[in-house]
C-alpha cells in the first residue's frame, strides 16, 4: 500500500499539468479538480438561492407588501426554485463529492470519461448562466415557479425561453455525470473490489446514475416542447389548440419525482459513510442498504402521480399512486433503522460530521412522515398547494440533502484540503443551522394545515404569528450558513495539517495522503478485506 506520509508526494494541488494559473483548473480533466470547480460554483449558487429565500421570508414577516411587490415575489420563488433544484440540490452531492471520491473509493485513478466530466461542468455553468440571463433580459423575469406548468408557461410575458433552455442544459449536464459514474463503476473498480465490497456512497451514486439517465431525458424533451410551444405555437399542451396541460404535468413529474431521488440517494450514501466511520462499526445490514437504495431508485419512478392528486386523474390512478407512495417509504425506513442499528454499541466519536448525520436522520424522518400524510388521498386534498407541502419538501430536500451536503463537506474536508476545520466554529455553525432550520420550517406545517397557500406574497392576519417565527428562523439559519461557510474558508489557511486518516475510516480514500496525489494511488490498490472492516 502507499505511504501514509502526506508530505512525501506532491498533492494534486501541486501537480504541474499542461496549463498554468486558472487554466490549470478550468481546463483540467482531473476528477478532483472538477469536483472542486463544482463545489465552488454550487456554494456560490447556494448562497444566491439562500439569499433570495431569506428575502422571501422577510417579505412574509408581516401581511401585505413588506419589501417586494407581488410580481417580484413571483420572480423570487421561481428563481429560488430553479437555482436550488437544478443548480444546487441535484448536482450537489454527486457532482462535488461523487466526482472527488467515487474514483478514489473504488480504487480508480479517474472517472471513465474525464473530458466528458469537464464538459458536464461547462454545461452546468452554461445552464445557470442562461437562467441568470433570463432575469435581466426580455420582458421581465420568469414567474411560473420552477415547475413551468402549462399553459401559463407559454402565456406569461416573463422571459421563459432562456430559463427553460437553462434547465434543459442543466439536465444534459446531469445525464453526462450519471453516464460517467455508471460506466466508471462498471469498468474501473480496483482488483478485488466486487460489487458486494463496494462502499455505500459509490453504491448510492450508481443508483443515482440510473435515475439520472432514465428520468432526465423525459424532462429534456418536455422542456423542448415548452420552448417549441412558445416559439412555434404547436399546441402540445395548449387547450385552445387541442393540447392537454395535464399531460404536461405527467411528463414533468415523470422526471421531477425521480429527481427527488437524484437529490436524496447520494445524501443517504454519504450519511452511511459518516455514521459507519464515526461509530467505528461496520454498517448494519450492508446488503439491505444496497437493496433499499436500488428499490428506492426503482419504485421512485412510479409515484409521480402523487404530485397531481388534485389535477384530475381516474380513481384507479389515484389509489395506485397513493399505494406506491406508501411502498416507497419502506426502503427509506429500512435505511433509517440500519443507521440507528449501526450506532448501537458502536464507539461513537462525536465529531461535527456525525452531528450532521444525526441531524439528517431527525429532519429526514420529519420530512418523510409528512410525506406520508401528503401521500394519503384525503389529507392531500386539504393540504395540496399549502405551506404544509413547502415544509415537507424543505425538510426532505434542504433538511435531507442540505444536512448531508454539509456533513459530507466536514467529513471529507481534511481529505480534500489537507487541513482540519475549526471544530468549535463548525459545531456552533451546526447549532445555529439546526435551530434556524427547525424554527424556519416547523411553523409552516401548522400554517399549511390551517390553510395558508404557498406562492403568495401576502396572507391573512391570522397567519401572522407563525410567519414571524418562521422568518426569525430564516435569519438564524442564514447566520448559521454564514458561520459554516466562513469557517470552512478560513480553515483553508489556518487549519491544522490533517493526517491521512483523521477519523479512522476504512474506505479507500483514507488510505492515501491528504490531500490526494494527482494519480490518487501511488500503487494500484488490491482489495482483499470486507467492506467496513472494523474489529
Amino acid at each position: 500500500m502507499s505511504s501514509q506520509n502526506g508530505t512525501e508526494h506532491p498533492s494534486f494541488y501541486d501537480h504541474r499539468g499542461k496549463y498554468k494559473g486558472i487554466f490549470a483548473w478550468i481546463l483540467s480533466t482531473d476528477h478532483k479538480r472538477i469536483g472542486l470547480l463544482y463545489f465552488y460554483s454550487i456554494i456560490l449558487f447556494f448562497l444566491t438561492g439562500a439569499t433570495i429565500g431569506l428575502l422571501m421570508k422577510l417579505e412574509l414577516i408581516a401581511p401585505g407588501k413588506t419589501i417586494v411587490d407581488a410580481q417580484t415575489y413571483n420572480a423570487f420563488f421561481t428563481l429560488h426554485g430553479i437555482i436550488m433544484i437544478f443548480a444546487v440540490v441535484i448536482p450537489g452531492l454527486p457532482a462535488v463529492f461523487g466526482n472527488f471520491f467515487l474514483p478514489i473509493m473504488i480504487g480508480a485513478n479517474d472517472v471513465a470519461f474525464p473530458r466528458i466530466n469537464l464538459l458536464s461542468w461547462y454545461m452546468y455553468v452554461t445552464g445557470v448562466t442562461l437562467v441568470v440571463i433570463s432575469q435581466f433580459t426580455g420582458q421581465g423575469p420568469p414567474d411560473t415557479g420552477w415547475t413551468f406548468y402549462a399553459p401559463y408557461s407559454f402565456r406569461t410575458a416573463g422571459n421563459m425561453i432562456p430559463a427553460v433552455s437553462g434547465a434543459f442544459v442543466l439536465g444534459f449536464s446531469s445525464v453526462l455525470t450519471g453516464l460517467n459514474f455508471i460506466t466508471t463503476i462498471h469498468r474501473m473498480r480496483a482488483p478485488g473490489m466486487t460489487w458486494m465490497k463496494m462502499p455505500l456512497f459509490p453504491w448510492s451514486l450508481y443508483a443515482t446514475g440510473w435515475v439520472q439517465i432514465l428520468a432526465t431525458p423525459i424532462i429534456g424533451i418536455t422542456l423542448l416542447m415548452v420552448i417549441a410551444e412558445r416559439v412555434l405555437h404547436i399546441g402540445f399542451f395548449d387547450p385552445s389548440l387541442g393540447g392537454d396541460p395535464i399531460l404536461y404535468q405527467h411528463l414533468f413529474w415523470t422526471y421531477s419525482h425521480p429527481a427527488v431521488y437524484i437529490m436524496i440517494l447520494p445524501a443517504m450514501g454519504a450519511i452511511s459513510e459518516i455514521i459507519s466511520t464515526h461509530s467505528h462499526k461496520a454498517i448494519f445490514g450492508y446488503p439491505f442498504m444496497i437493496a433499499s437504495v436500488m428499490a428506492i431508485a426503482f419504485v421512485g419512478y412510479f409515484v409521480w402521480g402523487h404530485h397531481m392528486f388534485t389535477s384530475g386523474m381516474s380513481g384507479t390512478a389515484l389509489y395506485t399512486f397513493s399505494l406506491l407512495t406508501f411502498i416507497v417509504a419502506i426502503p427509506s425506513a429500512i435505511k433509517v433503522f440500519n443507521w440507528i442499528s449501526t450506532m448501537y454499541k458502536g464507539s461513537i466519536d462525536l465529531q461535527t460530521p456525525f452531528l450532521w448525520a444525526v441531524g439528517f436522520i431527525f429532519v429526514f424522518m420529519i420530512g418523510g412522515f409528512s410525506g406520508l400524510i401528503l401521500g394519503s388521498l384525503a389529507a392531500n386534498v386539504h393540504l395540496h398547494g399549502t405551506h404544509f407541502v413547502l415544509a415537507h419538501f424543505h425538510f426532505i430536500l434542504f433538511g435531507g440533502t442540505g444536512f448531508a451536503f454539509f456533513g459530507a463537506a466536514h467529513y471529507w474536508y481534511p481529505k480534500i484540503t489537507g487541513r482540519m476545520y475549526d471544530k468549535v466554529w463548525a459545531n456552533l455553525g451546526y447549532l445555529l443551522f439546526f435551530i434556524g432550520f427547525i424554527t424556519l420550517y416547523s411553523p409552516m406545517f401548522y400554517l399549511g394545515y390551517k390553510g395558508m397557500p404557498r406562492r403568495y406574497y401576502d396572507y391573512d392576519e391570522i397567519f401572522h404569528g407563525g410567519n414571524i417565527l418562521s422568518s426569525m428562523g430564516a435569519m438564524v439559519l442564514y447566520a448559521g450558513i454564514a458561520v459554516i461557510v466562513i469557517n470552512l474558508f478560513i480553515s483553508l489557511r489556518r487549519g491544522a495539517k490533517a493526517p491521512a486518516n483523521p477519523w479512522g475510516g476504512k474506505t479507500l480514500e483514507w488510505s492515501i495522503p491528504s490531500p490526494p496525489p494527482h494519480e490518487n494511488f501511488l500503487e494500484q490498490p488490491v482489495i482483499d478485506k470486507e467492506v467496513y472492516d472494523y474489529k
Partner: protein
Amino acid sequence: MINPSDIHRQAETAKLGMWVFLFTEMLLFGGLFIVYSVYRLRNAAAFHLAAREMSIVIGTANTIILLVSSSTIAMSITAIRKNNKRLALILTGLTVILGFLFLINKYFEWGEHFSQQIYPGSSALALRGQGDVLFFGLYFFMTGLHALHIIIGVTIIIVVMTFISRGRIHSDRYSVLENGALYWHLVDLIWIFLFPLFYLIT
C-alpha cells in the same frame, strides 16, 4: 506505455458509455411517442385523415436511404478491421452522402407542406381543427428533431472520416468509428418508428 489490452479495455468502456447514452436518446424520443399515442387516441379520425396527406413515396425513399446508409457504415467497420482504409473511406463517405440525400428529400417534403399553408402556427392549419394541428405539430417537431440528429450524425461521421484518413483509426483501434456507427444506427432506428407513425398508419 499503453499496451494493446489497455486499448481494448478503453474501447469496451467507451462502448458501454455509448450504449448508455443511446438509451437516453431513446427516452428523449420516448417522451414524444407517449405524447403522440395520447393525442392519437383522442383524435383518431383526424390523425387518420391527416396521415393520408403524407407522401408515402418520399417517406419510403427516405426509409430505404437510411437503411442502406446503416449498412454502409456497418460495412465500413469490417473494412477497417481488414485495414482497407480506402474502402472504409468510400463506405463512410457513402453514408454521409445518403444522410444528405435524406435531408434533401425532407427539405422538399417540408417545402410542399409549407406551400399548402401547413406549418406550426399557421392560421389555415388552425381552421382545419385541433386533430390536424396536433398531428402536424407532432410531425414537424418529431421529424425536425430527428433531422437534427441526422445532422449531428453526419457531422460525427465526417469527423470519423478525417480520423480514418489521418490513420488515427485503424484495425487495432476503431472504437470511435464503432460508436459513431452506433449513433447512426440509432438515428436510423428512430426513423423506423417515425415512418409508420406518420405515413403508414392511416
